[in-house]
């Protein structure tokens, strides 16, 4: 695993999180020795492809999956808010009813619930849609409702499973504003995503590859942690460490030596993830053979 060497992420011990957690489902290892800190007042992201283990990790943190090994630090149940992938709202209830139902489930008094729901409808711009059935909302509106439902009880820890997947860029920007508002108010936020540009917005990022932690740190730390250099070339190069990006070719050079005619460039997070995966694959005997 590639982790920041100089400095541990500051939230590693103070916040909520996972310590060397392994999860097995029968013979399948869904997560292998994953550690992650989720600090208050910050957004932490877990990035990985579909089936990388993101949902399992989130479900371990909220207490829905028991780890086979390792420890979990989480607040009491009442202080956890969880938004599952693919919404978690009732399509045949109205926006108002979904929120009222969640408020009741968390035991909010009628008066508190009313003012909290009003505030949430306002912040999510769903006031005008409050009497519409959730099932008839656009994808972006439905995700905003699901987020509001997950935070109706003002939890200390909010866990969001791919809140912006399949959501268009305009709604994504709105969801991101709501998520940042939570962090600004001191909430610990953990979110899963498949989008690199989205992980780049988080304070710290855990990269999962097939259940294994590939990298952990700030986006800056992750892209600096891979050994060697990154070069850009004008044309195609026949090398398994090369890939095409935005019309040009990039090649990772583990020993730092420059291929002919190549230009040294500064990797961004996306490059960092590609290089981390290439480094990981190079370390696997069956692939290197």
């Amino acid at each position: 695993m590639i982790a920041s060497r100089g400095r541990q992420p500051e939230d590693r011990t103070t916040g909520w999180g996972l310590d060397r957690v392994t999860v097995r489902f029968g013979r399948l290892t869904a997560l292998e020795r994953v550690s992650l800190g989720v600090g208050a007042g910050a957004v932490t992201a877990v990035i990985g492809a579909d089936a990388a283990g993101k949902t399992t990790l989130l479900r371990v943190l909220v207490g829905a999956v028991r780890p086979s090994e390792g420890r979990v630090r989480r607040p009491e149940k009442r202080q956890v808010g969880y938004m599952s992938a693919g919404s978690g709202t009732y399509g045949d209830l109205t926006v108002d009813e979904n929120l009222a139902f969640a408020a009741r489930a968390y035991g909010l008094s009628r008066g508190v619930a009313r003012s909290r729901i009003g505030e949430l409808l306002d912040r999510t711009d769903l006031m005008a849609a409050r009497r519409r059935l959730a099932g008839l909302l656009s994808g972006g509106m439905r995700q905003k409702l699901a987020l509001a439902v997950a935070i109706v009880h003002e939890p200390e820890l909010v866990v969001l499973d791919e809140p912006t997947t399949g959501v268009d860029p305009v709604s994504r920007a709105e969801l991101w504003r709501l998520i940042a508002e939570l962090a600004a108010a001191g909430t610990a936020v953990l979110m899963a995503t498949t989008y690199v540009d989205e992980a780049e917005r988080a304070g710290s990022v855990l990269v999962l590859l097939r259940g294994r932690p590939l990298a952990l740190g700030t986006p800056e730390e992750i892209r600096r942690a891979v050994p060697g250099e990154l070069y850009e070339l004008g044309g195609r190069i026949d090398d398994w460490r090369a890939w095409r990006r935005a019309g040009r070719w990039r090649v990772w050079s583990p020993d730092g030596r420059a291929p002919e005619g190549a230009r040294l460039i500064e990797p961004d997070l996306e490059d960092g993830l590609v290089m981390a995966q290439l480094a990981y694959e190079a370390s696997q005997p069956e692939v290197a053979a």
Partner: protein
Amino acid sequence: MSQMATMAVSRRFGAEYAVREVAMAVEPGEVVGLLGANGAGKTTLIRLALGLLRPTAGTVTLFGSPPSRDTRRRLGYVPQSLGLYEDLTVAENLAFAARAFGHRVVAARLDPEIRASARVLVRDLSLGLRRRVAFAAALAHDPELLVLDEPTSGVEPLARARLWETVRAGAERGAGVLATTHHMSEASECDRLVVMVSGRVVASGSAAAIMGGMQTVVVTAVRWEDAFAALDDRGLPVALVGRRLRIPDRPAADVDAALRGAEVEARLEVVPATFEEAFVALARQKVA
């Protein structure tokens, strides 16, 4: 001759126009990205382009003639759902697609990982590999037009780069490519972009041309929380990136005034907007 062209094409469902007077074309060897929010009309336009829907008005041509069974043979389509048979093996899926297009599977042309999984049921494949099989099935008959709906969603960056290499190889052989995406970093893989808002094409051209030099104000404050609250309260479109804040398409003076009003100390810097920021600003303007 364009691989695909629409002229003033419209499609109405009841009283609602899903696509309105759209003119666009995909030339041989060109990769065109179709961008738009949900409900902007991308899927309807793709279905019109494939000849699956008839236009209410205007015309669609594929390879210079109206869509037909004949034109269907000359195009490859990878839907978002991938369109594979999950209870058939990889080899059976590829053979089925090949038979439908009247050719044979050439094993030597398949990438080694797909070849190694030939006898595996598609439902037992990793999602990344499943996507590569779908690409292989759609590309095997050397289509002259390739239509991709959200081609790389849910895929890690290395696998995404590899998929785009496949798409590019098709374009280099002369195929035209039309790809829809929500994923703004994918826009940089396209030669040209077409942006749809509410059924209409509102911008088209290179990413740089569409962005038109838009700028973003970057705010660095000791306490980002205070700066965020101050800007958010003023209704500025503020986004958190790490511990910095970005406010696209607004004058630095407005940002400065909001921060001063709330007595938040911060450093301001003006940088070029990202493509996603430009797209969101464009979509918001046109809707308003």
